[in-house]
């Protein structure tokens, strides 16, 4: 059977009952409270993302509204107005709104009629937003780059209708994405957090580092994760192998979801986002470990308090068993162990008294035995004398008997010899007789 020392048993027992509530508290703190703190951090990121996306959506809607207002301008719709007059009007409007980098009026064949800056690239007739406007529906382009000069822009196109409501041209206003980035870069997330946006293809349309604009997200898993949700939180590993968490938001208007499909992510490193939760977790761990150490120390000390006196008692018991009855145990624990020690001391005292009594009894007994022995020896001596005398008497009688015996035996032997001589004589006589008879 496995032998476990009392100290170990006490420590184990103490640890078990001490640790159990500690562990339960630890897990409750880590799981429940930390979960709440994490949810709080997540909700903070989501609400920030919603807020920024709301501002972006407002900007886009104002681009739509302004382009539609442009298309409804009477001078632009007029048949009578010359291209010079229209261009002058467009330039005035561009200055007035301050949002358009360029305004271009395009005919239904895709040829440019007039443009305030002529800063565009590619043919118009194959641009999707032009085609949709030509069909009578205001449309916005994906974010794209033009090179002269290098700009990331959005183009919003709206149909221009004459007085009869017939579409006669398309007007397209270019908006620099800087207008959108003012919103996304202006957000204060704290702790190194930032906001960025991706489009339907997973390309960045807003990012603090401009060189990343319109590049494809390299993290395939993150890309799929972002594009699969319109709101909520998402975790990912960034290029610096840092664990990140982001609150995701998208447009609320279906038209914008369909045309642009942008997702805005307010992102922060997990360590910063969950700083409060992590601090709490650290504190809980410190408390847990301190409690554990304290528990170990207490259980050790307690074990000592119980085991050391018991060991003293054991040692004393062993010494008593070896006959050292003078031993005294000095234990002042004020509990049952002290009582046990006192009982032991008393027991030892009692044993000592008993042993002294026994020793005295033994001495008396020895004296008595010696006296009796002497008596017996004397008795033996007297008996030996008597036995000697008797023996002598018996020897004498024996000797007499022996002599008598010898006499008897001699007579007997003589008788036998005589009988033999008689028989031999008889035989001789018989032979003589025979011989004579012959």
């Amino acid at each position, binding site marked *: 059977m496995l032998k476990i020392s009392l100290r170990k048993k006490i420590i184990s027992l103490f640890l078990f009952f001490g640790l159990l509530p500690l562990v339960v508290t630890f897990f409750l703190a880590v799981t429940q409270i930390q979960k709440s703190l994490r949810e709080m951090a997540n909700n903070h990121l989501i609400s920030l993302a919603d807020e920024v996306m709301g501002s972006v959506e407002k900007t886009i809607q104002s681009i739509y509204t302004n382009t539609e207002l442009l298309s409804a301008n009477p001078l632009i719709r007029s048949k009578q107005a010359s291209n010079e007059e229209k261009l002058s009007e467009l330039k005035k409007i561009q200055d007035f709104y301050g949002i358009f980098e360029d305004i271009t009026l395009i005919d239904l064949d895709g040829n440019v009629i007039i443009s305030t800056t002529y*800063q565009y*690239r590619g043919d118009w*007739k194959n*641009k999707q937003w032009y085609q949709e406007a030509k069909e009578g529906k205001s449309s916005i*382009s994906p974010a794209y780059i033009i*090179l002269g*000069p290098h700009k990331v822009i959005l183009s919003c196109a709206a149909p221009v209708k004459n007085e009869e409501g017939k579409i006669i041209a398309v007007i397209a206003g270019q908006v620099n994405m800087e207008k959108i980035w003012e919103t996304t870069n202006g957000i204060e997330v704290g702790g190194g957090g930032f906001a960025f946006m991706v489009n339907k*293809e997973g*390309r960045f349309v807003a990012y603090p580092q401009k060189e990343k604009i319109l590049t494809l997200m390299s993290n*395939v898993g993150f890309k799929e994760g972002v594009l699969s949700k319109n709101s909520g939180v998402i975790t990912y590993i960034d290029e610096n192998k840092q664990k990140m968490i982001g609150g995701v938001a998208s447009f609320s208007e279906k038209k914008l979801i369909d045309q642009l499909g942008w997702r805005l992510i307010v992102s922060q490193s997990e360590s910063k986002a969950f700083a409060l939760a992590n601090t709490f977790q650290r504190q809980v761990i410190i408390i847990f470990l301190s409690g554990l150490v304290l528990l170990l120390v207490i259980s050790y000390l307690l074990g000592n308090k119980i085991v050391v006196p018991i060991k003293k008692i054991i040692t004393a018991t062993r010494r008593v068993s070896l006959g050292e009855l003078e031993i005294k145990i000095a234990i002042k624990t004020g509990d049952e162990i002290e009582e046990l020690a006192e009982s032991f001391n008393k027991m030892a005292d009692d044993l000592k008294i008993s042993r002294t009594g026994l020793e005295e009894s033994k001495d008396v007994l020895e004296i008595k035995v010696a006296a009796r022995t002497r008596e017996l020896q004397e008795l033996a001596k007297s008996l030996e004398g008597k036995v000697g005398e008797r023996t002598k008497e018996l020897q004498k009688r024996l000797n007499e008997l022996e002599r008598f015996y010898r006499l008897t035996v001699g007579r007997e032997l003589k008788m036998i010899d005589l009988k033999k001589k008689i028989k031999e004589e008889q035989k001789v006589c018989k032979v003589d007789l025979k011989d004579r008879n012959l």
Partner: protein
Amino acid sequence: MKNKIIILGVVLILILSAVVLYFQIFKKSELSKPKKELSPVLNIYNWEDYFGTSTIADFEKEFGVKVNLQTYDSEDTMLSAVQSDPTKYDIVIASDILVKEMINMKLLSPINIKNIPNFKNIAKEFKNPFYDAGNKYSVSYLWGTSGLAINRKYIKEQEPSWAIFWNPEYKGKISMLNNMQDVIAVALKYLGYSTNSVNPVELEKAKELLLRQKPLLRGYEDSITIMEDLVSEKLWAGHIYSGDGSFAAAENENIEYLIPKEGGFIWVDNLLIPIGAQHKYTAEVFINYILRPDVSAKIANDLLYANTNEAARQFTNPEILEDASLYPSEEVKKKLEFPGYFGADPAVAIYNQIWAELQ
């Protein structure tokens, strides 16, 4: 005995852990790698009639991939389409400077050259081009010049010159390409300037020249339409790409493709993968297929364009290789210029304005 069992158990656990860890890492690394599997479809956007007659069918048969081929008649059309939806096509074709523009517009996906072993077949002079250092985004395809095709029956001038396009006798029988840079370059060259001038004064003069030309033109049209109408003699002279000009000459003996004495554009077309391409690996397999010497030579033989594929020369018709209008001499090449990259130059707006006024 008991110890042995424990050691065996520990070893087994370690082995199992190692196996699980390996598969976890393997799975992760597999996820991060692009899949090397052929897709069932491949979406290609190319110039009209710019593959060999059986190129697509042969590829479909060999690789079991259905090719959806759509065509355009102007590079600007292609650019607008890719800008509108970069996920729509897996392969597009663009010339040198447009490649550079598309790179700067972040519309292209880097090509994994490891998936294109036939890249070695490209002639050295077409590797590492000025518009795409290190061929990160492009693989050269065919090359040519923008010149003029004339019908000798109607065009009297013996000397090949852009002046033919300003002869009022040919009013309504001339067509220019529907490409802004090509058209303005003709006027600039005719005036004796660089095809890539950004000088506003020179550009203004070019505009005036082109505006004078406009009433003489049937229109600004795509190269294939011009070729077909030259062959049918609806047109007498046309601004055309070398391959289409040579094709017209092959179809109608009166037609001749010429590089004007003033010079013109030389260009290299390239195979590209748009940034949002859905079937990138299959696109690379297709590009590798196109660069196979036999396939490449068949394309060049069918289209009559000069080939960038050195290894394809052995399968190319000798008369094509010897055709000076397709493979101009070094002396003629000196008069030719690659289209210029204007980048952020304000001249872009002037070019756009001239083009808008010409429409």
